[in-house]
């Protein structure tokens, strides 16, 4: 219970504790601490936080093309004539788009699935934005799809699943290289990572 049975907190305090407790990674104690911190906070700062949350829900939509979060539809990335429209990079989450954009090494478009296939959690293709991805490929202008799902069990399952679905629709399907991380130690690498690194080795020309 978030509140004491003997000295009940005022109703608005108890309500906020309950709401914060619903957030991922926030336990009952953290929810209490955050709530009492907000009580002590200057009024304008607390208001700014409340407005930021409201704006998030009122202004953020998903782009009808790439399914990424955006303020306008289509999103700036999908609307940019400077990008390579023949390549689509498929990622699990909007945060993955930010990670790849930070590299400044990719100039194509994206497609955000909003999750990965996870049989044990009952998450299948119906729960992901797979139908929207297939619709984008129907036009025939896409030449390459890069599968950039996470290199873990769910990500691999999703990549294998999408490969089967997209094979008739797009000439080239590629998967991000899996192998040794930069800054890693070979001796700590597991068997699967080493096998993938060997399979994906390339001509070396420094």
């Amino acid at each position, binding site marked *: 219970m978030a509140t004491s049975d003997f000295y009940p907190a005022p109703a608005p305090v108890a309500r906020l504790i309950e709401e914060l407790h619903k957030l991922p990674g926030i336990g009952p104690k953290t929810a209490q601490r955050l709530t009492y911190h907000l009580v002590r906070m200057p009024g304008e700062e607390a208001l700014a936080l409340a407005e930021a949350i409201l704006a998030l829900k009122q202004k953020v939509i998903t782009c009808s093309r790439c399914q990424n979060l955006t303020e306008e539809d289509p999103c700036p990335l999908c609307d940019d004539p400077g990008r390579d429209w023949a390549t689509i990079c498929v990622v699990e989450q909007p945060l993955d788009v930010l990670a790849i954009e930070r590299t400044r090494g990719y100039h194509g478009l994206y497609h955000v699935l909003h999750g990965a296939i996870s*049989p*044990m959690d009952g998450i299948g293709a*119906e729960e992901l934005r797979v139908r929207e991805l297939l*619709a984008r490929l129907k036009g025939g202008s896409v030449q390459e799809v890069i599968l950039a799902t996470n290199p*873990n*069990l769910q990500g691999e399952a999703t990549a*294998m699943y999408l490969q089967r679905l997209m094979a008739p629709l797009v000439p080239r399907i590629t998967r991000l290289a899996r192998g040794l*991380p930069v800054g890693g130690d070979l001796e700590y690498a597991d068997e699967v990572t080493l096998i993938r690194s060997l399979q994906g080795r390339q001509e070396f020309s420094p």
Partner: protein
Amino acid sequence: MTRPRLYSTEALVLRAAPLGEADRLLTLLTPALGKLQVKARGVRKTASKLAGHLEPLTRSLLHLARGQTWDTITGAEARESFLALKSDLALLFRALYVAEVADLLSPLEEPAPPVYALLLEGMRALMAPGDLDLLLRYLEVHLLLCAGFLPEFQQCTECREEVAPGRHLFSPQRGGVVCTSCGSPAHGDQPISINALKVLRFLSTATFGSLRALRVPSALHRELAQVLESFLRHVLEREVRSAAFLRLAVLGPSSLAPASAREA
């Protein structure tokens, strides 16, 4: 059983769920300590040294430190990665189904050497040629046997009479086969063919090696899957979530399309 402050164990990783910023909560099956839920710190970071050794469906040697809520993994070394299972969608869905059934049927922290041995043999058998559906039925029957829930296949669970051919039903609620005098389809008892009953009796005493000798026609396969599915649903009081994916894997690549995409 109280575990020492630091301990080592071999384990098969059954499932992994994200926890906090970069951690995972792992469900492990170990031979001597049974099913455990442990924390793996930082394994969602790219440069994590442990991550590759702790993927689901990996047999690893683990070092752990006892914790207040969850024990924490301090070291891991993969011993068997079952790469062939993870590189084929149909095999992967089957392996995940077996892992989920084992997870749901195993209580926490109950030593389970037979379940552990069965799962490892099962994962290896899934990668070998053979009747994979029959293998799944074998694993379901033996996981139920290890958990103490093996249905009765010989006598009526009510009157204890040997069941006569053609005069029996299967009742998940009553724990097995019932004769037509004791059971009735009106009470949810379902018909079961004598051949299905024979295969189930065979499976409950068979070994992995003896499975190869058996040939099962596809109609009988469907009946066996249905009988065991209804029994598992009754015992677990819920659906096995990955079972739906199993049906997709069995049907082949085209059926893997989501219903909406097939209509399009």
